């Protein structure tokens, strides 16, 4: 099967080359047949990369260890679900996933605009195929997923246990969908600049793709945060790690773009800004992919130093140079049609929101790349930590939440005092009420958190008032019931109410972030069974130790050493928690030191014990004391290393029995985090809003159906 996959990739590269040539020739000579042929090359690329990806997936599912990439990233003991996901845990597989997703999105957008933007589309096609050519060339010449071994090893290395989490199935594809979707508006912006057609048409044609990119990237980032919180055993959801930051950068500039294009659509302003934003976002998306895959910065996500540095830096350099050249040479065409009338207007608030988002992106960019910057300036690599990031991002985030309340309702062009009073009186009253209530109950420890709660209350007040007014107006016009009026209101103005929902979700999410960062209680304690520790007013008792061997297909999948804990507050039971640490065997447990040592020298992961609630999460992980545990393991391992397998297995069971007697102490991390659940709830609200805005409006769908029907009738008449 490997030669089939490799042939698909070589053909895909050739298709890209042909498609770029055909699109550019068609655009320059006005030959529509060549343009159409260029577009069909993108469909061809999609078919070929789909086939290549299918070959790789089948190899993973069948555990075909002739494929080097399968042997190094999967094993027969890896559960089927994770075998499918193991494909993109590798460098080669993830690059193939990138180009496959790119080809699908490119095909979709070019199919949708096949009868529109006839001047812009061929150049956009060439740019999209350029990306395709870059990634397929990497897959053909640098890191092929179809490299085979002359003799297949009997067993593979297995998927890293840390990646055995349901999120592995969706987190990377979501991020990559986000990254690749940004290439679509990027390509159309380049096309629009090349032909100097810089009105809002290319924005309208690709708006949904930009929104989808924002949506998928956001879902990917949030899933990563959730994964980190629920799986990684440190209790946090954001660490300002370079790879996290890399995904946040295009999301921030993309969010700015989604706001500022409204100003261009409505008032013909900010054209230079908008093209610059989307060109920057597209470039940051490629930069993000590069950071994830290159290992150039020290990150918890060590995907290993790779040989892809030079090609990626060249591509990013080309993207930046090309973007700057196009914007500078087209600046006359990009002149605004109107001027900003007042600083108290929706345009001005959108500009402010953009400045804050771009400011945030700049902070994150600077902090992320600081090791490289400092090395260039001082000769020493130096890094900035989370406190530095927080110092700048926290005030900017506060400002952003406030603006997300003002922006949706302030008047276009110029706000008057009457307009401000009408829109902001009640929400301000709500915010002040919340402030008084919070001060009354003694929430004074963190000024930042207090301000965030008040601003969030303001946003909720503004949006509730808007919704109330919309529903009342609709009921007055149609005499519908409140629920029906709400549904029709949202259905008829999806973009607007989708946006409101997103703002609401962001306010909720930031309340969760502020509360859980400012008021978290954390303790690291060492306990033996029967002992109790107190954290944030909760008494946590280590009730008993547990030990278990999980087997799969006759082999040991992992050994789990854990603890049952009881959580009480003021004497009454809150929850029973179970946490454990899973030890996965090293790839060849019998090769070095026998089964016992092999079991404990492989990877270990934490299973978090958590009682999640709307007010607070009680969270815990265990780490059996390595000093004691290692001595016991070493003793057992030395005695049994050269014994038959059955005897070694019985030694493992003996070890389990020793652990279960509770003689080995354990280290626990105990956290009580208030309102952390609202981060995930806020995220869900944001994405519900995104879906509302993405969903085609019924009128638009009807309009398209009518246009399609009219076109068919016209064709028939032509033929007749």
């Amino acid at each position, binding site marked *: 099967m490997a030669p089939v996959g490799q042939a698909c990739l070589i053909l895909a590269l050739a298709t890209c080359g042909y498609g770029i040539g055909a699109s550019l020739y068609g655009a320059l000579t006005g030959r529509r047949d060549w343009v159409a042929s260029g577009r069909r090359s993108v469909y061809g690329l999609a078919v070929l990369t789909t086939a290549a990806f299918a070959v790789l997936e089948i190899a993973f599912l069948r555990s075909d*260890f002739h494929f080097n990439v399968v*042997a*190094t*990233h999967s094993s027969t003991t890896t559960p089927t679900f994770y075998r499918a996901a193991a494909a993109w*845990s*590798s*460098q080669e597989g993830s690059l193939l996933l990138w180009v496959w997703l790119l080809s699908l999105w490119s095909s979709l957008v070019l199919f949708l605009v096949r009868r529109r933007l006839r001047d812009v589309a061929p150049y956009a096609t060439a740019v999209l195929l350029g990306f395709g050519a870059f990634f397929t060339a990497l897959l053909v010449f640098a890191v092929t997923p179809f490299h085979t*071994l002359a*003799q*297949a*090893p*009997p*067993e593979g*290395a*297995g*998927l*890293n246990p*840390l990646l055995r989490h349901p999120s592995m199935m969706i987190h990377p594809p979501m991020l990559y969908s986000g990254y690749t979707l940004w290439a679509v508006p990027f390509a159309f912006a380049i096309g629009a600049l090349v032909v100097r057609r810089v009105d809002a048409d290319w924005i309208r044609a690709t708006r949904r793709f930009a929104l989808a990119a924002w949506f998928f990237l956001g879902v990917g980032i949030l899933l990563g945060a959730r994964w980190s919180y629920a799986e990684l*055993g*440190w209790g946090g959801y954001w660490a300002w*790690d370079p790879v996290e930051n890399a995904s946040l950068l295009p999301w921030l500039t993309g969010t700015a773009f989604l706001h500022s294009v409204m100003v261009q659509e409505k008032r013909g302003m900010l054209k230079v800004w908008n093209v610059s934003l989307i060109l920057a976002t597209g470039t940051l998306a490629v930069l993000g992919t590069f950071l994830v895959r290159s290992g150039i910065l*020290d*990150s*918890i*996500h*060590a995907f*290993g130093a790779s040989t892809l540095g030079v090609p990626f830096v060249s591509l990013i350099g080309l993207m930046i140079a090309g973007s700057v050249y196009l914007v500078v040479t087209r600046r006359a065409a990009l002149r605004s049609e109107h*001027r900003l009338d007042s600083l108290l207007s929706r345009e001005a608030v959108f500009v402010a929101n953009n400045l804050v988002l771009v400011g945030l992106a*700049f*902070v994150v960019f*600077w*902090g992320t790349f*600081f090791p490289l*910057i*400092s090395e260039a*300036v*001082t000769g*020493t*690599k*130096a*890094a*900035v*930590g989370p*406190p*530095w990031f927080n110092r*700048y991002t926290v005030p900017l985030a506060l400002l952003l939440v406030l603006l997300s309340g003002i922006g949706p309702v302030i008047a276009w062009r110029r706000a008057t005092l009457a307009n401000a009073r009408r829109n902001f009186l009640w929400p301000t009253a709500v915010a002040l009420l919340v402030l008084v209530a919070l001060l009354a109950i003694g929430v004074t420890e963190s000024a930042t958190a207090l301000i965030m709660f008040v601003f969030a209350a303001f946003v909720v007040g503004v949006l509730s008032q808007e919704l109330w007014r919309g529903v009342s107006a609709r009921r007055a016009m149609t005499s519908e019931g409140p629920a029906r009026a709400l549904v029709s209101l949202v259905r008829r103005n999806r973009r607007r109410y989708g946006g409101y929902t997103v703002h609401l979700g962001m306010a909720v999410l930031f309340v969760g972030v502020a509360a859980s960062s400012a008021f978290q209680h954390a303790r*690291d304690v*060492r306990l033996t069974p029967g002992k109790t520790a107190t954290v944030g007013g909760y008494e946590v008792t280590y009730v008993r130790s547990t030990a278990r061997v999980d087997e799969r297909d006759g082999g040991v999948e992992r050994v789990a050493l854990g603890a049952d804990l009881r959580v009480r507050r003021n004497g009454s039971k809150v929850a029973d928690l179970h946490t454990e640490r899973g030890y996965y065997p*090293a*790839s*060849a447990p019998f*090769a070095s030191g026998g089964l016992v040592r092999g079991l404990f*020298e492989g*990877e*270990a992961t934490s299973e978090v014990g958590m009682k999640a609630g709307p007010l607070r999460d009680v969270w815990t992980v265990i*780490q059996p*004391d*390595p*000093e004691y545990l290692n001595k016991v393991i070493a003793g057992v391992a030395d005695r049994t290393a050269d014994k038959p397998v059955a005897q070694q297995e019985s030694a493992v069971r003996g070890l389990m029995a020793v652990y279960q007697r509770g003689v080995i102490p354990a280290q626990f*991390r105990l956290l009580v985090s208030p309102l952390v659940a609202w981060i995930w709830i806020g995220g869900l609200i944001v994405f519900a809003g995104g879906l509302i805005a993405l969903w085609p409006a019924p009128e638009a769908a009807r309009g398209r159906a009518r246009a399609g029907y009219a076109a068919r009738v016209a064709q028939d008449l032509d033929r007749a």
Partner: protein
Amino acid sequence: MDPSRKRRIRLVVALTAAVVLAGALAYTSFSASSPAVQPSKLLASANSGRSYQLTGKVVDGSIEKHGNATLFRVRDRNGRASVPVRYVGAVPDPFRNGREVIVTVRKRGGLFEGEKDSLVTKCPSKFTDKPASQT
């Protein structure tokens, strides 16, 4: 005032503010940063009180547990020079002998004290073990 002149003044003010803010950001990043160093560099020149981002590999067999504290040695990625590190709190899941770690440390006597929650162990997102036939 002539509107175009007004706009130009506004633009200059906004750009100046942006440059000043970016300058402040750049300045503070240099003063707040911890230099990333390998053990050999730390051995040669470590100032007490200054924080460093120590990167290197955990020396095989050096991990010891004393109550809440974990003691281990970190060596150069490609070398033998190593420094002792004392870290209080839970260590990350992938923390192991031979693993690459990054930890923010300050010199305290003969030891390097790790900053709480700063220990990062590289999670090998792909297994680096080679299959049996290749080794």
